[in-house]
């Protein structure tokens, strides 16, 4: 049984990533696992801890699990694998999860800005360099004009 790991980050791009992952999982008869990395944002309001009993990290993990549950709805039932919420830097979380579940393929989005630099997101670049397996980088649909 082959295993594909799709990294979804809650952005609008994630839909395209998920669509590609589902298409490949269906074509290859693979199990599709989903991962979302959770990290503490740099700009947490200082009084955040007063607003809830849960720690911020717990809130974020909770929301990530809810988000993955929504994503799973788009995966055909016979292709569904596990979902993983991992605390950490995204590229490390994705690579580590790929290693842990012995994924055959990781699917994730590039940042795909099509301006002059055409930057590859640092997460995608690092996963390409550090993942133990093959990596599919899905581009964002190219806008008609190169306007950032």
């Amino acid at each position, binding site marked *: 049984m082959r295993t594909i790991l799709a990294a979804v980050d809650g952005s609008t791009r994630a839909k395209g990533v*998920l*669509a*590609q992952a*589902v*298409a*490949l999982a269906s*074509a*290859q008869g693979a199990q599709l696992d989903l991962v979302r990395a959770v990290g503490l944002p740099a700009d947490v309001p200082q009084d955040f801890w007063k607003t809830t009993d849960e720690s911020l990290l717990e809130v974020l993990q909770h929301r990530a699990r809810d988000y993955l549950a929504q994503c799973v709805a*788009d995966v055909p039932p016979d292709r569904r694998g596990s979902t993983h919420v991992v605390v950490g830097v995204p590229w490390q979380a994705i690579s580590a999860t790929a290693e842990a579940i012995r994924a055959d*393929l990781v699917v994730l989005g*590039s940042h795909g800005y099509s301006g002059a630099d*055409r*930057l*590859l997101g640092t997460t*995608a*670049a690092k996963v*390409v*360099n*550090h*993942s*133990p*397996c*093959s*990596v*599919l*980088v*899905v*581009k964002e649909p*190219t806008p008609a004009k190169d306007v950032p």
Partner: protein
Amino acid sequence: MSDAKPLTSHILVAHDFEPDADAALDYALALAKRLGARVTILHAFDSPPIGAPEVLVALPEWLAQITAACRASLDRIVNRASAPEVPVASELRQGPAWREVEAVAKELHADLVVVGTHGRKGIPRALLGSVAEKIVRTAPCPVIVVRG
């Protein structure tokens, strides 16, 4: 996902005549068979560096020899790759691989690029940076980096 239109119908494989590229080609062929897609194998060779005046004179002849040698190697690969289920074509281009992959993917409307990469891990791999990463940055469509 209820998309009726297949996401992938034309796969472009970048082949540099190295063993790592064979893994990418095998991956692409297997995927094409599953998806009912066709495959184009691209080899790009860079022009030889020009360092002395006499080289300029010899250049057209060299270029013809290089082109013929590349053509022969590419034809061998296409013959080996040919399978009844998957139509396989080839493209031979002169220029940096990443630029030619981008150009050919656009020209031929490829919707997936497959490239190989060295199986090295960690820092040596990261430092190698690699053509594969550059292809991921510039290609107009999703890219699978196949770990050899």
